[in-house]
């Protein structure tokens, strides 16, 4: 088995694991982690696809895509963790934004 096939297979495995975790786990921080595991799996598949054994140097476009994907994943994870932390605080501590009359009705 060539190394890039191994990478791709492991990537698909990570994707499946992450997806399962994101759906099945209840804890919010762990769900954020699970989505990151899934993302890492996708990135590994892309990196495996970038391998060009005959040329030697890997395909730079796929690498650029992975780099961009990592930047997006970091910012999205930061946002998700911030939301998760707010939600994990007890109700009365969630802060000063609560006095909105309309939304009270829909709660």
């Amino acid at each position, binding site marked *: 088995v060539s190394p890039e096939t191994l990478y791709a297979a492991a990537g698909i495995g990570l*994707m499946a694991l992450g*997806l399962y975790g*994101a759906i099945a786990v209840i804890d*919010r921080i762990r*769900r*954020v982690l699970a*989505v990151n595991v*899934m*993302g890492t799996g*996708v990135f590994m*598949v*892309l990196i495996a*696809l970038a391998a060009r054994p005959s040329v030697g140097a890997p395909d730079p*476009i*796929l690498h650029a*895509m992975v780099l*961009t*994907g990592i930047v*997006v994943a970091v*910012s*999205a994870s930061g*946002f*998700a963790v911030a*939301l*998760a932390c*707010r*939600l994990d605080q007890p*109700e009365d501590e*969630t*802060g*000063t*934004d*609560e*006095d*909105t*009359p*309309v*939304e009270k*009705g*829909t*709660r």
Partner: protein
Amino acid sequence: LNTAGALWIVASVLLPFALGLLAFVAGHRVHRSVAWISAAALPLAALGLTRHVAAHGVVRVALGGWGRPLGIELHADAVSVLMLLLSAIVGSATSVYALAYFHVERSPGGHRREHDGASSRFWPLWLMLWGSLNALFVAADAFNVYVTLELVTLASVGLVCVEGGRAAQSAAFRYLMVALIGSLSYLFGVGLLYGTTGVLDLQLIGVALVPGPAATVAASAMLVGLVVKAALFPFHFWLPGAHSNAPAPVSALLSALVVKASFYLVLRLWLDVFAIELAVSGGRVLSLLGAAAVLWGSAQALRTPRLKLLVAYSTVAQLGYLFLVLPLLHQATDRTLVMTGVLAFALAHGLAKAAAFMAAGSVAKTAGHDRIADLAGVGAVQPLTLFAFGIAGVSLSGLPPSGGFAAKWLLVSAAISARDWFIVWTLVVGGLLAAAYVARVLRAALRVSDPSAPPARARRSPLDWPTAALAIAVLLLGFAVDPMAGLLAERLPALVAAPGWLP
């Protein structure tokens, strides 16, 4: 000649981003000016681009002079400009509405109340969302689509919780998780497509793609990702919570524009990339799910006790139609007609749903709640608001004269000519169900709350004008279908004659 078109495209994308940054840095002092500038300038840019595309055809801009296959290009054809027009009209009406919705009465000491926080979060995020949506509508390559999709997601989720509140934050978190999974699935597909074709430009992929297992897996991953984000049944579970717990102007934007962006991409992939047998088999599945969405969304809208939830479930149902009719793009004899019907439907739903959410927001703000059972008297106090909701309801049910009627007329005729009775019946039954849930609201709101009390004075609110403007726009759309068909027929040559397009 192309420079004028390039200017309109770049303005549509750059202006909202620049104004959004300004709103973020300069804070509440500039909100009013930023809102009016964007509300005035972006419809002009969209109109200018539409006229340019109508006169000269597709506009392509290679950013920084770097063209495909390596560089980033922007691409505006008839479908893109119609979506840009929708985002411009709904966007400017929502901006005007949001100015009044988030308005803060300042006490004499200049002390600002808490609501100001929501306003200063809303404007930067909304303008970022506007720019990202416009960038998505003109993205020419599959990877740029991924980047703009993520920008749209992050801005939308942020907007859901601008007012804070636990229900909104919880819905926002769920929305974010689902949207991220959808984007990753899409990205996986893009990687596979690039791995097999060596290009990222959507049209070039369409030319280079050879049917096979890699193409099938890539197409499925991309479509599943987009369908999750477009909230097609059974992936709609995140939508009602996120759209109904958001502040009313945000609900309007999410239902009218954001879910439409994912559908637009499905359509784009259908037309440009997977114009092979793949689209035919996939289309059947999506069509069945669409029919289930129409029935399930309408049934929930008939049952829910809350007005904003009713409008959100109606979005689930209306999105179903867009997927329901996808097979007609292959079956019908006149594909331009189907395409016009699909886009007219997307536009009509965008305008009507924004108006409906805005009206629901005004009702909730005045009444202090949105329980449908307790809406008695609203018809007397807020006649203009209810009138706008009624017009939006007419279009959602597909009754004349409205954009919704014109769109359904085209789609029903296309389905009849293709002898697809399943689609015909779903369209008809869905329309009846929509009329029933709209009537449910109108009946509750037109009741007199207390017959012995003196008649209530009608109240006027600045929230009513943008709402009514959208309601009128959806009526006018009923008459704009012919020019739309002309634009699509002339400027989408791939649609009229594509060799090997039919199975």
